[in-house]
């Protein structure tokens, strides 16, 4: 589904603080699988995740999404591709404070120009699915950590993406909530979503949901084997 060819990402190029985040990465992600990017902090997994999720462009190398070269797409199209293909769950949840949970869930779909009524209906269905229907009209800062994360998941799902990307999803959750998160992921996988998770939490990479672990260290892929 996604293929990276010899991808390299450099921050602050040609400056004193030049920093190579990832280098020489070749990686192929198949549909309907669950992949974990594993590695210590600073290993480049977040950078790799943003490149995989079309949020950042590589300094060099090529990205193919469904056999389509997307590295050179202009911003507008890239944003569109990202919006339609990826749903992202951030480490800090990154919900917009001060507005309701429902509005947060609907936000990624706003630029699509979907009819408000049907969009709201879909958002409510997602909230229902994640047992959050009672919190729809609460402001997000009143939610607990677990609730906030489920809102973030609902938001990632609103545009019905093929791929769900999660960056350190369990970093701010206790064990019970982490397991709960993995159960939701199992559900999504069963529905046919492709999962891409960056994590160094055993609850995540030891989970039976995961098909494949890609290990990263110092910006390079150390091992990319499937789980036997």
């Amino acid at each position: 589904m996604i293929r990276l060819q010899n991808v390299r990402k450099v921050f602050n190029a040609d400056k004193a603080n030049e920093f190579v985040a990832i280098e020489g990465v070749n990686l192929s992600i198949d549909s309907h699988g669950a992949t974990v990017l594993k590695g210590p902090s600073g290993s480049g997994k977040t950078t790799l995740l943003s490149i995989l999720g079309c949020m950042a462009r590589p300094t060099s190398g090529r990205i193919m999404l469904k056999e389509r070269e997307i590295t050179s797409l202009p911003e507008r199209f890239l944003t569109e591709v990202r919006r339609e293909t990826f749903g992202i769950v951030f480490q800090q949840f990154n919900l917009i404070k001060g507005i309701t949970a429902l509005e947060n869930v609907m936000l990624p779909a706003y630029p699509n120009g979907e009819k408000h009524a049907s969009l709201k209906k879909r958002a409510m269905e997602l909230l229902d699915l994640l047992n959050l229907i009672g919190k729809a009209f609460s402001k997000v800062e009143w939610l607990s950590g677990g609730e906030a994360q489920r809102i973030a998941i609902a938001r990632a799902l609103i545009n019905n993406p093929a791929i769900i990307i999660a960056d350190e999803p369990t970093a701010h959750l206790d064990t019970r909530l982490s397991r709960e998160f993995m159960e939701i992921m199992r559900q999504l996988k069963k529905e046919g979503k492709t999962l891409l998770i960056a994590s160094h939490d055993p609850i995540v990479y030891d989970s039976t949901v995961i098909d494949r672990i890609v290990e990263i260290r110092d910006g390079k892929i150390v091992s990319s084997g499937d789980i036997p």
Partner: protein
Amino acid sequence: MGAIEKQRNILDFTLSSLGRRKGKNIALVVVYTFVIFLLASVLFFTHSLKKEAFLILQDAPEMTVQRLLAGRQDLIPTHYIDTIRQIRGVQSVAPRLWGYYYDAMSGANYTLMVNAELNDRAGEIIIGNGVSMRSMSGKRNQALRRNDIIPFKTYDGSVLTLKVRGLLPFASELVTADLILVSEADFRKLFSIANDQATDLVLNVRNAKELSTIAAKITQIHPDTRPILREEILRTYDAVFDWRGGVIFMVLSGVFFAFIILAWDKATGLSAEEKREIGILKAIGWETSDILLMKFWEGSAVSMAAFFMGIFLAYLHIFLASSILFEPVLKGWSVLYPSFRLTPYISVYHIATLFFLTVIPYTVVTIVPSWRSATIDPDSVMRM
């Protein structure tokens, strides 16, 4: 359809977003409303006054002839009347006798003017409404009425007492508030002006097209005179309150620019929180143009609200509350000030001017500085 729905979706979010900083945004709208209110009040006031002046001065004398002496207006000899009357095209020439009288008791300046109707009623006066309110008789806080006696100090030091015969119509206060109409005999006695002299001459002509030719002829025959045409009187009032030239407008522009700077500062100094939000929106699939659209709606919402409220309040202020805030400025040091209710004359041009002067700059000022924040990479939130 999708495009409209998109706009509305983004507007929904913008309004929710504005609602979060309620106190700050309400304060902003209030200040902004006040600025527009002041600008609109000035425009409405001056425009209506100009229009009013234009309408009622249509019947001012076609031509007034003054005599200048050493750079000052001086009394004009009445024998000029005969020579001017002989100019072809002149229909009638009449002397005017008028001047100012300072009343030490009330501290007010009055305009004394001779009216032919009083000429066989020497000793009587007709007064404007403003004069009657400013009691000259010593009885403070009491309006002058018919048959009240007013003492005038003549220029030779004696006292001349005149009796109020009546009041000028209420509706004419805008032109007659400080007027005291007297008989010719009393006027000459009061100011010791010789019988062969007048303040100035007013004339009517047969054909208005010949006015300038006649004016030229008058200055030829009497080089010491200065003709003033009605057209010039009308133009005077057009210029006196021209909003582009008025100091009021300059002052208000200052206020307005200060406000724009404030808005600019607010917009450029996007808080870390706001920047983070823009990053989140970009990361979840908003384009740069969507962010700018949001900022556009934000600027529009604030400035449109202020625009409508400001204009409406200004209308109430000028036409229903008699420009109560401007009164101290307009009165200045005048002791006597006409109380009048302006007839509302508003023009689409002025509303449009205000719109382009306020809503557009504010909206631009909200969008432009957020440009840089809007172009941040969508992955920036991942790295935070």
